[in-house]
């Protein structure tokens, strides 16, 4: 989404004529009898900034290592630029990887670490020093050029690793949690730097991150991975607004899930019966539910408004009591307990000073949302 330039949005995955740069074809990877990657099929296109998101141990690094050439798929093939890369050794692939553990060479200085790959490329010797300079200033480490990796801080090491993988300007760059050790400000700067590099060089990025905000910021598409399987692959806004499962909705951001029975009304409108003595929730859904299907209504806290009086212009309203208030600075999250015992989270921007806030604990409040604010999920 960061790439929308002009009228045509960057969305090669929607164009069937586009050839993918990377293509996983039913790839399975087993370690002994443990399946780390489970029959995965995925296309990644040139100039994409593709983010892998998922819990620890779900197979993100394994996926990267197969692209870099350190693991061979147990089954299936991986194509890079239309070529099966199975038999190509890591040093012959136009792919560079930034390791989760950084893997800096302890016996070489920061500058020599960055120059390492350049010295083994066809770059003329005279240009190497200049390129190293450029990389050092990019990651703001110019004054540390002659230090050894053990003489710099963890965050600085991470930046050296990043610079080293960027130096060769590869066709495909794999970043395994590239910014985890940086403080928030430097991380944001580097994120924009990465997007800038991406735009300038047209490199394709595959990035692993635990930080969903980061994925949202930089990625053209996000893949949510769990147990070696892709749960959903979509642009950040789709992942956030239209998750395809409770898992994705829950993994990305905060969400309220209300379980109920679907009663189709008209077109794609449904009444969701979620409680005996309460009006059903009215919602819309892109995919169909039959009458009395079990469904889950998922709605983001920021789409639930909280007021003292019952609003008249909203389709769905429910009354409850403030149980807890989480103050996050710019916003506050209110945990509101319904008479049924269910707790719904509602978020409100703090555009007033805290002393003038309208609700406090145990206040009786009204929650409300429109009929298009949430999504209906089957599982």
């Amino acid at each position, binding site marked *: 989404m960061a790439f929308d330039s002009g009228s045509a949005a960057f969305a090669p995955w929607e164009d069937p004529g586009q050839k993918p740069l990377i293509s996983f074809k039913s790839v399975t990877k087993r370690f002994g009898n443990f399946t780390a990657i489970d029959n995965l099929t995925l296309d990644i296109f040139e100039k994409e900034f593709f983010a892998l998101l998922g819990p620890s141990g779900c197979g993100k690094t394994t996926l990267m290592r197969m692209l*870099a*050439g*350190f693991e061979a798929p147990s089954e299936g093939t991986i194509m890079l630029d239309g070529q099966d890369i199975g038999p190509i*050794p*890591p*040093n012959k692939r136009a*792919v*560079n*990887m930034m*390791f989760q*553990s950084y*893997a*800096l*060479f*302890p*016996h070489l200085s920061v500058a020599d670490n960055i120059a*390492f*790959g350049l010295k*083994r*490329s066809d770059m003329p010797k005279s240009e190497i020093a200049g390129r190293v300079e450029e990389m050092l200033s990019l990651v703001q480490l110019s004054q540390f050029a002659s230090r050894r*990796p*053990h*003489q710099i*801080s*963890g*965050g600085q*090491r991470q930046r050296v690793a990043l610079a*080293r*993988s960027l130096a*060769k300007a590869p066709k495909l760059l794999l970043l395994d949690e590239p910014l985890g*050790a940086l403080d928030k400000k430097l991380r944001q700067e580097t994120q924009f730097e990465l997007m800038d590099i991406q735009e300038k060089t047209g490199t394709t990025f595959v990035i692993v991150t635990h930080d969903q905000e980061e994925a949202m910021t930089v990625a053209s598409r996000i893949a949510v991975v769990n147990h070696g399987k892709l749960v959903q692959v979509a642009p950040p806004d789709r992942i956030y607004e239209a998750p395809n499962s409770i898992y994705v909705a829950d993994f990305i951001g905060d969400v309220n899930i209300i379980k109920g029975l679907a009663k189709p009304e008209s077109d794609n409108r449904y009444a969701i019966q979620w409680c005996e003595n309460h009006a059903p929730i009215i919602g819309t859904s892109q995919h169909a539910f039959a009458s009395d299907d079990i469904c889950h209504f998922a709605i983001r806290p920021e789409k639930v408004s909280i007021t003292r009086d019952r609003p008249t212009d909203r389709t769905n309203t429910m009354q409850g009591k403030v149980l807890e208030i989480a103050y996050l600075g710019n916003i506050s999250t209110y945990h509101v307990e319904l008479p049924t015992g269910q707790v719904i989270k509602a978020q409100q921007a703090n555009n007033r000073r805290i002393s003038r806030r309208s609700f406090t604990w145990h206040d009786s409040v009204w929650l409300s949302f429109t009929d298009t604010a949430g999504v209906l999920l089957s599982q």
Partner: protein
Amino acid sequence: MNRRYSWFNITSLTLGFAFLYIPMIILVIYSFNASKLVTVWAGFSTRWYGELFQNEAFLDAAWVTLKVGLASSTLATVLGTMAAYVMVRSGRFMGRTLFSGMIYAPLVMPEVITGLSLLLLFISIGLDRGVLTIILAHTTFSMCYVSVVVSSRLASFDQSLEEAALDLGCTPFDAFRSVTLPIITPAVLSGWLLAFTLSLDDLVIASFTSGPSATTLPIKIFSAVRLGVSPEINALSTILISIVTFGVISASLISKRAIARQRREEQEALQV
């Protein structure tokens, strides 16, 4: 910490060291004895050192020993490092345990057996016994020591460093040469020194594999002593003791310093 040593501790320490080193100290002292009679002290003199350097037979043997030591320890270091690398890096394969057992078996094999089997081999392939056969024999038995030293270092070596090198365009050999080797150099060096001192020391295997054309110093000393201990032998032994001491001390210093540095770097790496 202010720790006091009890009398008991001091006594046992003294006894232990005395047991280990009194014979050698006596030998060193008598090497400076002016008298021809080994057991009668007649004042300080370096006469026997002088005579030693006139003795062609000893000098020849010393030269052979040095050549054998340098050549065999270098060969053993190359082979032992390669073996260690394969053992640590190749992961699991059929018969891995057997293979690694076979590399380490010569460590516990009686030297007489190693010597004898090498002798049989050389005879059967018609290799004349001489410097070459001693070099081969010493390489054979000292390479397992080198591979033990090097593989313990490789086991704690972060494999992702090699992967990073490959990723940046190195061939596997280039990755080994420009990343792995510089990092494990201290272990390789102390392996080399160990192999060198082992070769200097060896009597049993050398006596099986040496021929009339080439004799090593330990063999020479042993045969000379059978005709009676001469002060010259004391002088020679003193020189040998100093060489071996120097070798062992520098080997342990090298590896100790490397370990200390590695610890420090790892600790610093953890303080992210």
